[in-house]
């Protein structure tokens, strides 16, 4: 029982991180219909920035947790957003209007580039930092097994839910969200109505990168170790989460993330830790076979 609850808590936390990354995937897909495979690496860049800033703040003697967390978030969001903007500008915009496959390939190229850039400039070794937010609650003890709920886990889940609400509101209720959805449906008509389509797409990449930045900071604080390669696997899992939930749907992305986080935790605890990815990607295959539009996605068929 204790083990079950503990895995539930761990799985939800992991799932919240995947959900946060998946939000960025799904939002970019929702506007230009393209899977941004460099998104996971943008998240990795943010985690590296977070380690750098936290180490710097530590050496400056700034120890207040909320303050250092906020500074780290602000710096990571700023630089990661610049990366997101630049990637779109350099790798995707020149290919707009070409085949659907071209930006996809260029995205994979961008992903390889970012990994190698970080490996070259930061080194390949794993970077650890001291726990920023240690401790938590001991929920209960049963048969000698104590169930823990860490402060960072609460922080991560609350952040994900909060950002899901903020971005859902942004996209469904605001003028900017309408402009984004209009770009997805008919870019020419959108520009005829006076909307600067290039600017809207750039801003979407900036917002997507900002979401990845938050996820990167959270993971740094939670695990305390990062390296140049964490973006690849996290990106693939978040992509799976986005597909599972229905690409283009924000609540779907978080739901998909939570499901995958839970599968991974339970599979690892009860079946085999080495093969937990089997569960994740097995689910992806099943979803693609039986429900290609995902759990909350809209079906492709449209009345014309």
């Amino acid at each position, binding site marked *: 029982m204790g083990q079950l609850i503990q895995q539930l808590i761990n799985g939800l936390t992991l799932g919240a991180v995947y959900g946060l990354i998946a939000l960025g995937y799904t939002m970019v897909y929702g506007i230009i219909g393209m899977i941004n495979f460099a998104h996971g690496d943008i998240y990795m860049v943010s985690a590296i920035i977070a380690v750098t800033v936290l180490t710097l703040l530590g050496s400056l003697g700034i120890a207040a947790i909320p303050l250092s967390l906020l500074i780290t978030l602000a710096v990571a969001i700023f630089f990661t957003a610049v990366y997101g903007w630049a990637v779109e500008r350099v790798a995707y915009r020149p290919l707009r209007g070409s085949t659907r496959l071209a930006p996809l390939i260029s995205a994979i190229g961008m992903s390889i580039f970012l990994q190698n850039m970080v490996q070259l400039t930061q080194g390949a070794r794993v970077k650890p930092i001291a726990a920023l937010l240690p401790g938590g609650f001991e929920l209960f003890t049963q048969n000698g097994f104590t169930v823990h709920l860490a402060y960072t886990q609460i922080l991560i889940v609350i952040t994900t839910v909060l950002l899901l609400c903020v971005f859902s509101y942004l996209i469904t209720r605001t*003028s900017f969200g*309408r*402009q984004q*959805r*209009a770009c997805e*449906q*008919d870019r*020419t*008509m*959108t*520009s*005829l*109505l*006076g*909307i*600067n*389509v290039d600017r809207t797409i750039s801003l979407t990449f900036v917002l997507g990168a900002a979401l990845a930045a938050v996820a990167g900071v959270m993971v740094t604080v939670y695990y305390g170790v990062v390296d140049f390669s964490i973006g690849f696997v996290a990106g693939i899992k978040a992509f799976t989460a986005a597909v599972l939930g229905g690409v283009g749907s924000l609540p779907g992305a978080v739901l998909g993330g939570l499901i995958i986080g839970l599968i991974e935790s339970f599979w690892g605890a009860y079946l085999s830790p080495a093969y937990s990815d089997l569960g994740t990607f097995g689910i992806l295959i099943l979803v693609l076979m039986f429900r290609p539009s995902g759990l909350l996605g*809209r079906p492709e068929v*449209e*009345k*014309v």
Partner: protein
Amino acid sequence: MTTMLEYSGVHAHYGAIHALRGVDLNVQKGEIVTLIGANGAGKSTLMMTLFGKPTASAGKIHFQGQDITRVPTHRISRQGIALVPEGRRIFARMTVLENLQMGSTFADPAHFDADLQRMFAMFPILEQRREQRAGTLSGGEQQMLAIGRALMGRPQLLLLDEPSLGLAPLYIKQVFKIIRELNEAHGMTILLVEQNAHHALRVAHRGYVLQHGEIVLTGTGEQLLASPEVRAAYLESSAEAHG
């Protein structure tokens, strides 16, 4: 009268196709001007050139005295020009209300509520369907929505590209009634591209006939209606169809 829109010697290319070959055309404030011509004569190109899609390869387009030939597409509508495009191009996965909001993106928000009520008074069907997805509307209703969306931007010049195409006769009548009303009651300046020459020439003050990218004939609506060339080329078949 003041000139609202003026094309002088405009050429345009679509890839290898020389779609416009030195078009001269003007629209005065308060006028309904129609542009008729066969399929592929360059009517839609002429209208889209105004928005820089494609950009005129030679010649100038002036709007209210300003050269807008090379102004980027998204800045054109902010000058006070709205387009009801061919095929309507409403946002199918947005609600009716959201489509109207899209039209008013750059209008003064202070006018929004009053403008919305004005649209609902003009097109009661849109009020009934305001929370419905626009893709579920009938063709005629979508055309009303496309016109409403264009008007929400408070344009000074309204462009309509084949607004009667593919509509049921009842809706065709309503579309031309709305065009006349907008002009007479609100003083809206209108440039109308139509294949339905009969209806278009009856509602318009002046008309132009476009053939292979060139203006071959111009005159008042009545003159063109009476002209033997126009009758032979554009009216004989459509006159039968519309009695």
